[in-house]
């Protein structure tokens, strides 16, 4: 990581040649190794090395950004950021980059096997999946394993200088099933900081089991009913709504359906949500955020009441507040080619006290929704989604897999109508979520 800090400081030195107020340099490198099993054949083996810098330059209230992966062009990149800042109209809301660097060591879990790119171990995991005895009805099994070692460094002209590293591994398994002319399938995924937490074989077995069960499918008629959302579906309906709805930039720009509800009790009292960038084994954790602010734990929703927004330095300074450490760059969080934006680091919906098995067996009639590919409309707070994987439940038993159905409603009323949260949490990406039972959800059926 020393070389990344050196690169940052080199760019900072170049920046002093220009008439600027301040400069920030973010640098990251990622070593990625991917193995893919396609149709049960070892197919993709990919090795990627991506290293570069992103530079922000401020002249009064004008900011310019430029990035490069060509480290022989650091000076050109500084100049390009300077040229953009020079011609940019001033942004009255811009105050400054992070001027409060802090050393904040939290002791995060990293995996030496990933750091040393232990190819054999990753191959072993995928080979185990390949050697599974598959039911004849499974016509294809795809599995993708990615391990990544990321190093991050940041420096700016306010004296902030920090570096850290993290390792992650992720697996996605998809199975397709067929019986005669009847097709179906299922999938699952998990992301962790270490390889040993990946239980690929169990995951693949469960996916195949569900893919076969899903061949038993049927349509339902339109109705209003109780639903149980699987954690994967919770991430779309609740997770994305809160992630984008309490993003300070969306709120300040009145692009959030929750803009008028900050500080108010708007959801069910059973709903508690926190965001925490300091969890030792969280994939969104690092000592600092993508602007160098110390990572921290923030309560977003307490007993249904909205307590706090998620900020980066720009949105926080606009309200004369301190950043909440929610700056990230790009979808990978630490992408040098992206400007800082706002995201939860590790979003946690607090668990309830009923086991999922009991939630289902106590349900007289309703629908268990495992997955929707749809996202809420954050501006209006409307949600309409297809039920890509879901089950009809009657008298406490799962009866069949549902096809051609949608579910919809206002996010606010859905989160008000929460009646139960499960006692077990599941990791879904950078979120930790329970099963959630919601009353009176509108189902659009295909009958």
């Amino acid at each position, binding site marked *: 990581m020393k070389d990344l800090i050196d690169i940052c400081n080199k760019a900072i030195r170049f920046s002093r040649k220009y008439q600027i107020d301040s400069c920030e340099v973010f640098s990251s490198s990622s070593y990625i190794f991917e193995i893919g099993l*396609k*149709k049960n054949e*070892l*197919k*993709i*083996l*990919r*090795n*990627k*090395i*991506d*290293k*570069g810098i992103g530079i922000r330059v401020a002249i009064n209230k004008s*900011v*310019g*950004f*430029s*990035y*490069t*992966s*060509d*480290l022989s*062009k650091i000076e050109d990149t500084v100049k*390009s950021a300077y040229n*953009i800042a020079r*011609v*940019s*109209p001033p*942004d009255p809301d811009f105050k400054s980059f992070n001027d409060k660097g802090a050393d904040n060591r939290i002791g995060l879990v990293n995996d030496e096997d990933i750091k040393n790119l232990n190819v054999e171990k990753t*191959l072993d995991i995928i080979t185990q999946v390949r050697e599974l005895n598959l039911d004849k009805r499974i*016509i*294809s099994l*795809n599995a993708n394993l990615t391990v990544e070692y990321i190093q991050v460094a940041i420096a700016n002209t306010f004296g902030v200088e920090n570096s850290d590293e993290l390792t992650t591994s992720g697996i996605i398994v998809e199975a*397709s099933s067929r019986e005669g002319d009847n*097709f*179906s*399938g299922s999938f699952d995924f998990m992301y962790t900081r270490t390889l040993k937490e990946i239980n690929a074989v169990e995951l693949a077995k469960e996916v195949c089991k569900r893919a076969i069960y899903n061949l038993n499918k049927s349509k339902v008629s*339109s109705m209003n009913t109780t639903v149980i959302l699987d954690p994967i579906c919770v991430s779309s309906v609740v997770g994305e709504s809160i992630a984008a709805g309490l993003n300070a930039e969306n709120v300040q*720009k009145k*692009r959030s359906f929750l803009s008028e509800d900050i500080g108010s009790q708007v959801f069910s009292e059973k709903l508690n949500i926190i965001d925490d960038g300091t969890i030792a084994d969280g994939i969104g954790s690092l000592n600092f955020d993508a602007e160098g602010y110390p990572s921290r734990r923030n309560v977003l929703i307490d007993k249904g009441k909205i307590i706090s927004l998620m900020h980066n330095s720009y949105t926080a300074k606009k309200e004369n507040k301190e950043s909440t450490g929610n700056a990230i760059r790009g979808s990978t969080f630490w992408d040098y*080619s992206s*400007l800082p934006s706002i995201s939860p680091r590790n979003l946690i919906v607090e668990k309830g006290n009923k086991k999922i098995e009991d939630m289902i067996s106590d349900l007289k009639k309703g629908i268990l929704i495992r997955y929707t*590919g*749809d996202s809420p*409309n954050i*501006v*209006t*707070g*409307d949600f*309409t*989604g*297809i039920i*890509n994987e879901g089950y009809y439940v009657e008298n406490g038993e799962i009866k069949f897999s549902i*096809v*051609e159905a*949608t579910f*919809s409603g206002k996010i606010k009323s859905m989160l008000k109508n929460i009646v139960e949260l499960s006692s077990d949490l599941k990791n879904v990406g950078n979120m930790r979520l329970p099963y959630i039972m919601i009353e009176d959800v*509108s189902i*659009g059926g*295909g009958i």
Partner: protein
Amino acid sequence: MYNLDKIINIGLKIGVDFIEARFQSNSNLTITYFDGKPRNIQHGFDNGIAIRIYYKGAWGFSGINNEDIEKGIHVAYKMAKKASEKIDQKKELKISKHEKARSITKVQIPFENVSIEDKLEVVKTISQDIEKHSEHIKSSTVNYNENVDKKIICNSFGINVEKIESYLHLSCTAIGLMEGNRSRGYEAIGSTGGFEVIKEKNGYNLGEKVAKKAEMLISAKGIKPGVYDCVIDPILAGVFAHEGIGHPSEADAIVEGNSILKDMLNQKIASELVTIKDNPLIEGTYGNYEYDDEGIKGQEKIIIKNGYLNQFLNNIETANILNHEMNGSARAASYLNEPIVRMSNIFFDKGDYKFDELINEINFGLYLKGFVYGYVTPNNGQYTFKCEYGYVIEKGEIEYPIREVSTSGQILETLKKIDAVGNDLVIEGVGHCGKEGQFVRVGDGGPHLRARKIVIGGSE
């Protein structure tokens, strides 16, 4: 610049069956305005090398943006070798065409000939136009994005293609708010070319267009979920073509058994009125290219011909596995990715109905327009598309607007429900399609289509 021939020679010396080296650089400028003010102006320059090796039936890949190219070759080889030990069927790789060519996008006004100040002025004007045309706009975004990609593709079969692709994308979003009702309007244009694209695609009017749309949708009503006869606009038709047929006809999905179109070649899968093509060679579209990222010349593919499944999209690998012709459908988002099978511009071909005739023959139904997003589960053809808005049709007349609705169903069933195809083909859907983590620019479109008994998820 790296010497690609040297990479090929190192590979051949090691004894690989096939090696490909691709240099790829990208220079881009993005200007974003929020609410009439600049929010983000950024420039990026990115370059690197992708190395692909085929050895005894297995692939290895390295994507690298630092100096350690030679190590990258050896790691790719090591991976291919390791994987080949676990592969039972060792298929040989053949290429029927290998060209040496140079291809440069036709550009009237190169981006570098226009100053950043002038570009800022254009974006600012469009951005400020939005608020001028509606008093209920609470928030707006205008996003300008220009790119120049340089690619050189060499392989051990003798392909040597050098290309420069220049393209522009401009989009506007406007959020309306009135008495607690919110609405969202979106408009985008895009094409290969230079700065002239803005004028050619009427980009200067984009602010006005998006403002009027958001204004209209504020008071738009919701509708009940149910089954409706529908007329579909060219943007949504493009999404149907792209998501519903395009992805399942990508031959990698066929090979993996992950497509509903597997084993259906030459079968009737749609109404005989339906013809769907994919064509990268159409200039003035966003999915335009002459050579693909394996260096194979692009061509028109007729995926569905008068209702019959006619052709898949192939890259070198899938063409070899399926014994099909290569048809120039391989694209890679950057040097960090290998070329995979992708669409370019996909569209429903035109029919002979006039727009009025499509509407007149509906007693009670919906005219669906635009789209927010959509996707299809490839192995069962189940789809969901979220339309931006629509209108209720009553007794053959377009009545009042409705807000965002989603439509879902099974694609092959829906294609059989198409009972009329308009004569007004346009390819103006512009987007960035994501597959396996790679985003590439694509175009899509069609004429207006009419389909009976479509499942609509409500918004009431």
